[in-house]
C-alpha cells in the first residue's frame, strides 16, 4: 500500500486538474502529454523491454486513427467505436507485420519498420476511394466542444495502459521479453520461443499505440495520411519520448512525453527558430545518449548528483 502511495497522489492530481479552471490551451497540452505517454508506453513494450527497436510506430498510430475514421466515414457510426475496433484490427496488422519483419534482427528490423510507416502513408494517400486520400477524413459533428471529457478518456486509456504494461512486465512475459533483448540465442536455448514472444510484444505494442491513434482521430476531428503516418512527427518523436524519459522504465514514457510536448510547444512559439525544431530535437537526443543513456527515469541519480553535499556517495 505504501508503495502505491505516490501513484495514487499522481492519479488524484491528474483527476482534479481539469476542474481547477485551466485554459483550453493548457488542457490541450495536457491531453497531448497523456496521449504521447500512451504511445511511449506502447513503444516501450516492444522497443524497451523486448529490445526490438521500431522506427515505424506511426504505422500503428495511423492504423488506429484510420480505423476510427473509416468506421465513421463508411458505416456512419461514432468514431469512438474505433477505440475498441482497433484492438482486433491492430492485432491482425501486427501479426502480419511481425511475420514479415520479426525474422530480421537489430538494425534490419528497425529499417524494416521505418519503411513500414512510409509504405502505409503512401498506401493511404493512394487508396483514394477507401481513405479519401490526401483529402483526409473529417468528423463533421464533434462529440464535445469542451476538452474535459477528452482529457478524462485519454487519461483512462493511459492508466489502463500503464497498469497493463506493469502487469505484463512483471509476469513471465516480461522476463521473456527482457531475455530476448539481452541475448536472443541464449533465450532460444533457455527454451524461449523467441519468434512467438516477439510477436506478442509487437501485438501488444501495436495495439496500445493504435488506441492512442483512434483517440487522436476523435480528439482532433480530422486526419490525413501526412498527419498520422509521418516519419518525423510520430515515429521519431515516439522513440525520442521513450529515450529521453527512460527506456524500459515504467515512468520513462510519461516523463519523456511531458518534456517533448512542452519543448515542441516552446520551440514552435519562438520566432525564426520555430521551423528548426527537428534540428533541436536531434541535438537534444545526442546529449541524452551521451550523458543519460538510460533516460531521465533511468539515470535520475546522475541528475541529482550536483545537488548532493560533497563527499556523499551514491
Amino acid at each position, binding site marked *: 500500500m505504501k508503495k502505491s502511495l505516490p501513484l495514487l497522489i499522481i492519479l488524484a492530481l491528474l483527476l482534479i486538474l481539469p476542474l481547477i479552471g485551466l485554459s483550453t490551451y493548457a488542457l490541450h497540452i495536457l491531453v497531448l502529454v497523456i496521449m504521447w505517454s500512451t504511445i511511449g508506453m506502447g513503444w516501450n513494450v516492444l522497443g524497451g523491454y523486448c529490445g526490438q527497436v521500431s522506427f515505424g510506430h506511426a504505422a500503428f498510430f495511423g492504423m488506429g486513427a484510420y480505423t476510427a475514421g473509416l468506421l465513421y466515414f463508411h458505416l456512419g457510426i461514432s468514431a469512438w467505436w474505433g477505440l475498441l475496433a482497433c484492438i482486433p484490427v491492430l492485432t491482425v496488422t501486427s501479426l502480419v507485420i511481425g511475420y514479415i519483419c520479426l525474422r530480421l534482427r537489430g538494425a534490419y528490423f528497425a529499417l524494416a519498420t521505418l519503411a513500414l510507416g512510409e509504405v502505409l502513408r503512401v498506401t493511404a494517400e493512394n487508396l483514394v476511394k477507401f481513405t479519401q486520400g490526401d483529402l483526409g477524413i473529417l468528423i463533421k459533428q464533434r462529440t464535445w466542444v469542451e476538452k474535459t471529457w477528452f482529457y478524462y478518456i485519454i487519461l483512462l486509456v493511459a492508466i489502463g495502459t500503464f497498469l497493463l504494461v506493469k502487469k505484463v512486465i*512483471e*509476469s*513471465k512475459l516480461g*522476463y*521473456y521479453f*527482457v*531475455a530476448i533483448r*539481452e*541475448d536472443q*540465442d*541464449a*533465450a*532460444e*536455448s*533457455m*527454451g*524461449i*520461443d*523467441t519468434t512467438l514472444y516477439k510477436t506478442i510484444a509487437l501485438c501488444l505494442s501495436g495495439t496500445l499505440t493504435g488506441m492512442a491513434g483512434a483517440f487522436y482521430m476523435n480528439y482532433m476531428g480530422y486526419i490525413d495520411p501526412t498527419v498520422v503516418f509521418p516519419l518525423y512527427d510520430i515515429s521519431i518523436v515516439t522513440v525520442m519520448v521513450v529515450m529521453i524519459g527512460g527506456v524500459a522504465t515504467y515512468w520513462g514514457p510519461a516523463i519523456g512525453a511531458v518534456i517533448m510536448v512542452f519543448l515542441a510547444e516552446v520551440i514552435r512559439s519562438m520566432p525564426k527558430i520555430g521551423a528548426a525544431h527537428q534540428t533541436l530535437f536531434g541535438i537534444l537526443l545526442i546529449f541524452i545518449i551521451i550523458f543519460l543513456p538510460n533516460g531521465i527515469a533511468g539515470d535520475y541519480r546522475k541528475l541529482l548528483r550536483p545537488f548532493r553535499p560533497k563527499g556523499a556517495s551514491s
Partner: protein
Amino acid sequence: MSLLEIRNVSKHFGGLAALTNVTYEVNKGEILGLIGPNGAGKTTLFNVVNGFYPPTEGEVFFKGEKVSHLKPHQICKRGMGRTFQVVRPLQRMTTLDNVIASAFLRAKSKAEATTMAFESLQFTGLYEDRNAVSKGLPLGKRKKLEITRALATQPEMLLLDESFAGLNPSEQNDLVEIIRKVKGRGITIMVIEHHMKVIMSISDRIVVLNYGEKIAEGNPKEIGNNPLVIEAYLGEAIDA
C-alpha cells in the same frame, strides 16, 4: 540405453565440411567428453544437436524422437539444456532474474519459478550472488551462471561447451564437483573440453573429432593410448 543418438551427421557451410558423417550415441546417465583440436567441429556439433543449425545430412534422435530440424527452444522443452563457449549471460539482468527467466519454462507461476531458481542457485553455489547484475560477475561465476540457467530448465541432458576454459584451478575443482553433483541427479552430460586432466577425470567415455570426423571413441584410458588421437594432437611421428 542411449538418450541421444547422432546418426551420420554432416554439416557443410558452403564448400566447407565442418562435420562429416559423425555417428555416436550418448547413454543415459553418463558423462561423455567431446574433444578434438581447434576447429575440429565440436561446437558445430553442439549447435546441430541443440537445434541452432539443421544438419546438412543425417539425423539426431533425443529420447527416441527425431529432433534435427526442430528449433532450439523446442529441443530445450524436450529436456536438453546447454551452455555457451563464450558466456552469454542476460547482461543487464540480475543473476536471480537470469535463472527465473529460465525456470519459467517449467514453472506455472512466478512464485514457482522463483522457488526453482533459488534451488538451482543453491545447487551451483551462486545463491550469495543472486542480486548481482550478471554483467559484473567474474568469469568463473558467469560460467557457473550458464550452468545454473541450463539446470533451471530441468533438463535430462546438459551440453557444456568449454565450461572450464579460463578458470583458475580452484574454480575448476569447484566446477568438477558441480558436474559430478549434476551427474548424481541422473542428468546425462555431454561436455566439450580442452583441459585434458579435467576431461580424463570426469568422462565415462570420450569421443574424439578431428577435421569434422570422428576418429576415436572409448573410455579415457583407451583414448589416451590411441595412436590416432596422439597424432591428431601432437602431429605425426617421424620415421627414423
